[in-house]
């Protein structure tokens, strides 16, 4: 569909620009300001150039948080994307169970993020939690507040619980868009289940999968409330991810300069990744 050139369309997008700019541009400028100055009070501030950036980039605590964050996001994508595709293929295509399954699947997505942490806290505590008591009962020495590996796995399982549904629902929508005729043709050709997946379903899923990977990357990369409630970043700092280090720095220790520099670097990493994806999606729209 050819779009018409029409500069007055700017008037239609103006309200959006104003509303978003109020919340986006002014705070972002404040962050840039902080990142370049050392602030002692309202009237004593010094320009420090890139000193904060250098300090942040050399901070070993942040390197640790960044590595944990990358590992976490990679694990999230590696588990949730295949699992989501698999489960989407298991969903019935029509019938009364479709609605029920969809509603149940969507439920974890509507739980406030800190309540997700609470749910998993009361579910996996070794003293009062279902999983905690059972795991210990069958002989595992499981305690997510004391053991780093247990804490890590608990946060990961929690995230799989919380977000895999998003991938499932996206893929399900993609599968629904495949006309029945494609499957009939495949049946006539005697295609195997794998061939149907590989040559009919997977190509159709490419678009939604890109969105799924993008959203899952972004949301896992900025995860905060869930592990904060569940483990508080511990034991030690085993589950301290980027957002939490940043919040501790800015609100806990009030190190505004380094925190702001850190914020900008953090934002840039996400931006870069997302831009590559955005271009890919745009190209696909053009081709398909």
């Amino acid at each position, binding site marked *: *569909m050819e*779009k018409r*050139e*029409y500069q007055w*369309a700017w008037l*239609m*997008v103006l*309200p*959006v620009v104003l*509303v*978003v700019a109020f*919340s*986006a541009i*002014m705070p*972002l400028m*404040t962050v840039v300001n902080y990142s370049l100055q050392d602030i002692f009070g309202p009237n004593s501030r010094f320009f420090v150039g890139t000193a904060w950036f250098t300090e942040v980039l050399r901070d070993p605590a942040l390197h640790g948080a960044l590595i944990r964050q990358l590992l976490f996001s990679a694990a999230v994508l590696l588990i949730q994307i295949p699992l989501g595709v698999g489960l989407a*293929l298991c969903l019935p295509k029509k019938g009364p169970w479709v*609605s029920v399954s*969809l*509603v*149940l699947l*969507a*439920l*974890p*997505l*509507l*739980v*406030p*993020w*800190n309540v997700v942490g*609470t*749910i998993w806290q*009361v*579910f996996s505590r070794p003293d*009062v*939690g*279902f999983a905690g008591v059972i795991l210990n009962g069958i002989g595992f020495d499981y305690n997510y507040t004391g053991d780093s590996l247990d804490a890590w796995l608990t946060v990961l399982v929690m995230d799989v*619980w919380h977000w895999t549904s998003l991938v499932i*629902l*996206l893929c*399900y*929508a*993609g599968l*629904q868009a495949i006309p029945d005729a494609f499957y009939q043709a495949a049946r006539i050709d005697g295609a195997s289940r794998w061939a149907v997946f590989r040559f009919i379903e997977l190509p159709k899923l490419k678009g*939604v999968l890109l*969105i799924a990977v993008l959203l899952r990357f*972004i949301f896992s*990369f900025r995860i*905060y*409330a869930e592990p904060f*409630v569940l483990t508080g970043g511990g034991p030690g700092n085993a589950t301290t991810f980027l*957002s939490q280090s940043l*919040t501790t720095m800015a*609100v806990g220790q009030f190190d*505004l300069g380094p925190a702001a520099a850190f914020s900008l670097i*953090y*934002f840039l990493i*996400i931006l870069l990744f*997302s831009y590559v994806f*955005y271009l890919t999606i745009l190209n696909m729209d053009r081709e398909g």
Partner: protein
Amino acid sequence: MGSKRRYIFLAAWLIFLMLPIYWLLMMSLKTNQEILSTFTLWPENLTVANYVKIFTDPTWFPGYINSTLYVAMNVVISLTVALPAAYAFSRYNFLGDKHLFFWLLTNIMAPPAVFLLPFFELYQSVGLYDTHIAVALAHTLFTVPLAVWILEGFMSGVPKEIDETAYLDGYSWPRFFITIFLPLIRSGVGVTAFFCFMFSWVELLLARTLTSVEAKPIAVTMTRTVSASGLDWGLLATAGILTLVPGALVIWFVRKHIARGFALGRV
């Protein structure tokens, strides 16, 4: 995979999803003494005392009203500004449209932790700190771009000939948009409202930073249940269960369109 194995896999997954919620529900119906002393799958002494407490205690109940209020404001603001913008993006080329669209999307990507302090200062300085509208406006940072993105997907699915025919018939743009176009993308509007609701309802970091007493969301009240005698597990579980109810209700209303909505109207 045989269809039986598929359904067993799916059923096992759904059980895994529901188990923690079931546990939370059971905990909310138990006494603290039972929670701490014995391991029971079903409450021995079923009690609704926790629910009574939340609905009667003035430190708890307003939290739900506050959350509902700012979420509702957010949905209204987001839809109002996003509808014309999405139409513009789906129908016209204009200077910088692609860049503008990406800039909007970057705001979904920005980690809220980045904005905590500046937001606090900004809303403090314009006198909106601790009001519902402050949280609603702060949440537009990601709900508005999301709304534009989803609505644009749905609107692009409507053939352009419909617009042209309406103009030839002498419809003005506002009249055409409200009486013809909106009804065509009804389900898209519903799905968009659902997503604005969802992201505003689940967000806590900004809501917590921008409120203290008057507009304090329920999720924040929950994080303060630690009393002198330790955590009140039963009360915490009850508050958690009650935060699930609005979400569950909303999902039920949009269940027919939910799958397409999650694909942002793009299939």
